[in-house]
Structures are given as structure tokens and as C-alpha cells.
């Protein structure tokens, strides 16, 4: 039964940011690498490199950040910052995520808005867009490893993964519906599994 008890226990990360300043700069650095979205960079920097979060923790925090309204990566930054340094940490992480990118984008429009019409610039943006799509897919692949110890069991995980992927990519169904129609059964089933595992202990 030891195996059962270990299931559903999240493996905790051992490293952490050293200060609010560290949070601000870490999130600035990762926001500045995020062309066409920051999610892939967050996973790579915070999980693979800095190891502030394990894959399992990242997926759990992302679940909360994703389901609540507002920009997901900003929600995630806020949650991580708050975990280590409370309100100050949350504000530092959020400011890191937003301040320098906003300054850059406003400077770009104020000075060079005509450059965006150049054919070479549009080509470069297209190339970077294709790469960043690949980055996001790779993040998804890496995070699949986090499902191995999921209390709902591997079969259920594969099923819900396939249904969600199919609904979004093939069915092009709106996110709210996917979250509602697939999310509730997934949570319900996990609840049943966790309770059963708890009784067996």
C-alpha cells in the first residue's frame, strides 16, 4: 500500500528565489525571452533551470492560473511571488513580468511603427512565431511526465488528455466549455480516487 500512499503526494521543489529583487529580475529576464507568449519560457526557466518548482507543482499552479480570469502568466507570476514573499513578492513578480516589456513595446510604437511594414521584418516575425509555437508544444511534451504520478491513474489521464486535445484542435470548442464539460468529470473522478486511496491507507 506504500505505493498508493505516495500517489497524489506532490514532490516539492528544493530551491527558491532569494529576494523580491531576485523575483523581479528573474521574471523580467523570462518575459523578455517570450516572443509570442511567455508560458514556454516560464516552464523552461523556473522548472528546468532554476528549479523553483517541480513539473508537478508547475502543472498544479498552472491549473489555478488558467481557470481564473486574467492573463495566465501574470496570474502564475503573482501566485509564485506570493508563495515566497507575500504581497511584496506577488507585486515584484508581476512588475517583473510587465514593466520592461511595456516600456519596450511603447518605445517601439513611438519610434519605429513604420518598420513593421518592411517585408524582411514581417518575415523575421513569422520565423520567430513558428519557433515559439514549437517551444510551447515542447513544454506540453515535457509536462506530460508530471502526469505519471497523478492519483486518477494513467489511463484516465491519457483519456482526458486526448479528449481535451481533440476538443480544442479538431472540435475548436470554446475554452469555457472544455473546462466545464471535461474539467468537472476529471475533478470528480480524481476526488473518488483520492478518497479510495485515503481509505486504504
Amino acid at each position, binding site marked *: 500500500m506504500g505505493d498508493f500512499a505516495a500517489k497524489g503526494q506532490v514532490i516539492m521543489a528544493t530551491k527558491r528565489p532569494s529576494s523580491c529583487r531576485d523575483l523581479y529580475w528573474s521574471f523580467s529576464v523570462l518575459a523578455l*525571452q517570450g516572443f509570442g507568449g511567455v508560458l514556454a519560457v516560464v516552464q523552461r526557466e523556473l522548472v528546468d533551470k532554476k528549479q523553483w518548482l517541480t513539473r508537478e507543482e508547475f502543472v498544479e499552479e498552472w*491549473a*489555478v492560473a488558467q481557470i481564473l480570469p486574467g492573463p495566465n502568466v501574470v496570474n502564475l507570476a503573482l501566485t509564485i511571488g506570493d508563495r515566497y514573499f507575500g504581497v511584496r513578492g506577488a507585486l515584484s513578480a508581476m512588475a517583473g513580468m510587465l514593466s520592461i516589456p511595456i516600456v519596450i513595446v511603447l518605445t517601439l510604437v513611438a519610434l519605429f511603427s513604420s518598420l513593421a511594414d518592411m517585408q*524582411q521584418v514581417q518575415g523575421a516575425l513569422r520565423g520567430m512565431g513558428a519557433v515559439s509555437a514549437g517551444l510551447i508544444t515542447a513544454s*506540453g511534451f515535457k509536462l506530460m511526465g*508530471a502526469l505519471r504520478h497523478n492519483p486518477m491513474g494513467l489511463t484516465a489521464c491519457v483519456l482526458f488528455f486526448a479528449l*481535451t486535445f481533440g476538443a480544442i484542435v479538431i472540435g475548436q470548442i470554446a475554452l469555457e466549455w472544455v473546462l466545464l464539460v471535461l474539467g468537472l468529470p476529471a475533478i470528480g473522478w480524481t476526488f473518488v480516487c483520492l478518497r479510495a486511496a485515503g481509505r486504504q491507507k
Partner: protein
Amino acid sequence: MIQIDWWQLLAHFVSLSLLAIGGAISTAPEMYRYLVDQQRWLSHAQFTSSFAIAQAAPGPNVIFIALLGWQLGINSIGAGAAHDWVWALWGLWGALVAMLGTLIPSTTLTFMTARWCHKNRELLAVRAFKAGMAPIVVALITSAGWLLASTPGENTQAWRLWLVSAVATLVVWRTRIHILWLLGAGAILGWFGWV
């Protein structure tokens, strides 16, 4: 010069904030309807170019709202109607109103919910929520990458872009190479028209 009611503008962004499930981008169609069609505070070109520039610049997608605000601020004073720095100040004011309106409600809700979830993380329901959402969340991330890779399908070179995405996926998945090298390679390929 366009008369902009800043209170109404703030109220508009505040009211959309809590509806933005899946990111601030998901309320863009409603912003377009209000700002361009109904109030005529922005032109169609200004709205779409704000979107394109924010996509191209580094950072989270939500900064596109800062750009909308900047554009609104400048429209309110009228381009060329004042010295350069006054013009930029109005732009900054607009960006500030738009961003604060968009962020304050959603971040407050997230902050309180995330704290509650963390405090009650041993609760069966909280554990079931987080673990139960995991396969769905991972699938959403994977399909976001998939959809982004397939959007530029209109041009004849679509298969080359697909190839770039596929190679980038493999390299990032299997190696620890820095992301900026890959983005740079993508930019060079596009600049010379190879993809």
C-alpha cells in the same frame, strides 16, 4: 481630436477583466466592438496594428492592452496637436488606465483564490481540483502550440513553417539549448524569406 470619457473607458476594462478566462486576449472581440464600432475612439487599423505589434514584441500577450490605451491617449489629444512629450504623456496615461482596469479585478481574485487554495491544500477537494485538472491543463498547453504552428496556413510555404516548429519542438524537448538561439535562427530564416 476625439472626446474620450476616461471613466467609461476604465469601467469598460474593469467589466471585461473578470470575463477574461483563458487570458486577456479572449475579450479582444468585445473590446473591438466597444472601442471601434460603438464609441469610435479607435480606428480598425489602430486596433489591429496594436495587436500585431504586441505579438511581435517580447512579453505576455496582455501588453496589447497597454498599446490600445496608448493609442486612445494619443487620439484624445490628436496627433500633432501638441509637443512631442505632451503627446507621449497622454499615451502613457491611456496605457495606465487600460492596464489598471484590466489587471486589478482579475489579479485580486487570483491572489485571494491562490492563497485560499494553498492554505487548504490538504483538503480533498483542493487536491482533486489540482490533480484532476492536470491532464486537461497539459493538453491545453500542447494544443496551444499545435494551433499556433498551424495558423499561418494561408501562404504557400506553410509546410516550411511547420518544419521549423517541429524542429524547434524536438530541440527544446530533447536538449538544453538556450531559447534565444532558436528564436534568432527563426528570425534569420524569415528575414531572408526562406520560411
